[in-house]
């Protein structure tokens, strides 16, 4: 059965081509500088690893060049982001993580500038509609990279235009030759490339101006590293001892195990109340025949296939959680699209399976399912809903959804329950007097909106005083550095404010990240250091949280 993962597969294939496209632009730009005698030598490398005490990042392109005027050596570090866009021009909230990572990479690279004799600049390329992500990103990025470049076409999809250059191109050099040929034509893509080349050329001859606000943001990181040096290194040592693996323990309880820690049981109770699908699917899997009888009887009541699908989609609360998942996935031969790309107004990943949909939305969904011709008749629908494939899908969904999902936060719930047992109150930070909007709100001015961070909690002591901000999540091994990168931006932007073009500390209480991880796992040092260098206090256990709160 095809999954949403295929969307990422398309993105990977597309990004590879765009990466080569940007490489062509950079090489063309450098060759022009070389021809006009502005530079003596140049080199372009793809996927350059930048490694430092607070970073281990891959940059899409790295350029080193030597100017003719005085032989100054300069490095250009470039990142590219693709925005695929959608026909409704909806913003894609999932891009926020990627956006934060990009900003953190750019801030971290300033360390290299500080330590290097070589002149250094950062460039960000956006390919596709920049409106695809939240409107604060473009101005925040412009304050974090030395140069930001946007490339998009409006008459033709920019990615289709790039893709066309790969037809019949087996090698990278053949694809680059095709780009070069395009540049001689009068197409929209050619005009865009010429504009980007002109922008790069102009910027170079202006002396590659530095973005001072980016330097200042890195200065905040330097402050943190300086002020908390001993603490940061001690936490790195402690990280080697592994974590509590709360997430796994909760999962085992969901699947029938018993945990000796009563807070784990409380956490699982919360988890099941937030995910009624889990309880429902467990019941169904225990008596699959009963489910099939009920589903068949419900389907047979309909006069035709459209009505049968409609009835299943609008089934009572718990039943619909099952039917909707099956209707969206069964019999699918092609990759499942992102929900927001289905072009049904108001349908989101948050309300797809449980929400009450309007008649128009239900018609939209039924129309979509019918259009895909995954169910041919009422009998076929019954057969598929009651098939072994359906049962396997639900079993896999149980396994997956008990572990994943934005509403599923066992690690966070566990630490919050534990603190409550120690006499603290843990409440949503957005419901307190604290301002939990990042400094990028001030950085971008009135041109863009920045929402407050929604998944932080405030810890109050018995006097009702807020003593810390708290977040908790499971960090799995393969994604540990990436998680640290995306979270780093949150603490930095909360801990400092940007007023009258100056950064200053805005939050005096600790911002604690409860890092739940496998018991035997030792995370990469640079990732743990980065999380702290950007302002977080890290806890690997409830005892650690209590120690940080009591400033012990």
């Amino acid at each position: 059965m095809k999954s949403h993962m295929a969307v990422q597969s398309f993105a990977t294939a597309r990004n590879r081509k765009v990466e080569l496209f940007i490489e062509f632009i950079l090489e063309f730009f450098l060759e022009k500088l070389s021809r006009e005698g502005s530079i003596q030598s140049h080199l372009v490398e793809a996927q350059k690893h930048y490694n430092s005490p607070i970073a281990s990042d891959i940059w899409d392109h790295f350029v080193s060049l030597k100017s003719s005027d005085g032989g100054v050596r300069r490095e250009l570090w470039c990142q590219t982001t693709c925005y695929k866009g959608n026909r409704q021009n909806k913003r894609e909230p999932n891009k926020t993580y990627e956006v934060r990572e990009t900003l953190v990479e750019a801030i971290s690279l300033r360390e290299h500038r500080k330590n290097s004799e070589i002149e250094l600049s950062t460039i960000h390329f956006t390919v596709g509609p920049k409106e695809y992500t939240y409107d604060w990103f473009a101005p925040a990025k412009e304050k974090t990279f030395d140069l930001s470049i946007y490339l998009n076409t409006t008459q033709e999809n920019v990615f289709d235009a790039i893709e066309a250059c790969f037809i019949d191109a087996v090698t990278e050099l053949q694809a680059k030759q095709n780009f070069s040929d395009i540049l001689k034509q009068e197409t929209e893509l050619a005009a865009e490339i010429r504009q980007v080349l002109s922008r790069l050329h102009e910027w170079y001859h202006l002396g590659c101006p530095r973005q001072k606000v980016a330097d200042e943001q890195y200065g905040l990181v330097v402050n943190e590293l300086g002020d908390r040096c001993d603490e940061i290194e001690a936490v790195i040592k402690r990280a080697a001892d592994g974590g509590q693996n709360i997430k796994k323990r909760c999962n085992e309880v969901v699947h029938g195990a018993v945990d000796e820690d009563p807070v784990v049981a409380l956490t699982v109770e919360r988890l099941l109340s937030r995910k009624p699908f889990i309880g429902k699917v467990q019941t169904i899997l225990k008596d699959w025949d009963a489910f099939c009888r009920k589903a068949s009887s419900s389907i047979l009541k309909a006069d035709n296939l459209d009505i049968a699908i409609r009835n299943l989609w609008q089934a009572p609360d718990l039943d619909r959680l099952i039917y909707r998942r099956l209707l969206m996935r069964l019999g699918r031969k092609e990759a499942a699209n992102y929900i927001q790309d289905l072009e049904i107004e108001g349908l989101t990943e948050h309300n797809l399976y449980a929400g009450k949909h309007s008649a128009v939305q239900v018609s939209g969904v039924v129309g979509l399912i019918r259009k895909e011709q995954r169910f041919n008749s009422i009998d076929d629908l019954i057969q598929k809903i009651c098939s072994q494939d359906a049962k396997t899908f639900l079993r896999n969904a149980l396994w997956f959804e008990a572990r994943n999902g934005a509403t599923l936060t066992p690690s966070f719930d566990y630490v919050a329950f534990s603190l409550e047992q120690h006499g603290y109150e843990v409440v949503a930070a957005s419901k307190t007097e604290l301002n939990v909007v990042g400094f990028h709100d001030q950085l971008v001015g009135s041109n863009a909106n920045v929402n407050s961070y929604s998944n932080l909690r405030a810890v109050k002591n018995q006097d009702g005083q807020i003593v810390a901000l708290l977040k908790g999540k499971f960090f799995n091994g393969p994604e540990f550095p990436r998680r640290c990168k995306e979270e780093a931006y949150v603490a930095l932007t909360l801990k400092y404010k940007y007023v009258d073009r100056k950064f200053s500390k805005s939050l005096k209480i600790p911002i604690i990240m409860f890092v739940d991880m496998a018991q035997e796992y030792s995370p990469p040092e640079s990732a743990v250091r980065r999380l702290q260098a950007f302002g977080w206090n890290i806890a690997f256990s409830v005892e650690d949280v209590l120690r940080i709160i009591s400033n012990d």
Partner: protein
Amino acid sequence: MTDMLETVREAFPRFKSFLSHASPFAESAWLGPISNGKALEMLSLFSISEAAISLADEFSLPSFRNDNYDHYYLRNEFPNHHEAQAGHEAHLLSQCSLEDRFYASVVPKLTFSLRGNSFMVFREGNPLHLLFCLLKGKTHYKDRPDISIVEGEIRSLALDGGRMYFEHYSRGIKACYEISIRNSNHIPIRDATLPKGYTINTIGVVECSVTKSKKHVDDQLHRYSELFSNTCDKSPEMLVSDDFPPRLYGSQ
């Protein structure tokens, strides 16, 4: 490491450099369950290599970057970025660098010559054949024979500035390949020169199986026969038998 490994060391002293120290790659081959087939595959590789050496006029065992003998255990497969995985974390966290993986992907596990003709033994992949197919506009196949023996030899293998360069000499014809070192879902062939008459002659494929059904194995071998059938008009200088265990013959 294990009794089995000790026995293998004694049976194949020529390969002791690759068997002499503990590493995650070696452990994966020798400490895993027999049913995963890796140990059988390695033993078959050693056996076939010994058989080839006994026939050969000359032979050479592989050398790897920084003399890292662990890389003998790496497949002759180009690194592939899993499409459904965003970012580069997987290879950043890997114990083996992307450069090393690309390098090891084309280093034969054995090179030997017989009556003036060179041959290479690859494990878990036939990298030159795959490159040749892609450059001829064929689709990217995923089949990886456990062991394949291919005519010719690789020369001038070098890494520089994010690129890997090498030449393949086969039947007196030289082909040049340049590969970009990229974490990619596609083999990043930067450039290649394939002269007229150049082809890849696969003279034998060995598949080791411990748990597959006969039908599965028959289908797989049939697929290999189709995929690796040679287009050259002159028969090769050596043959691999379909006996069990497979034997090598110099042609008469």
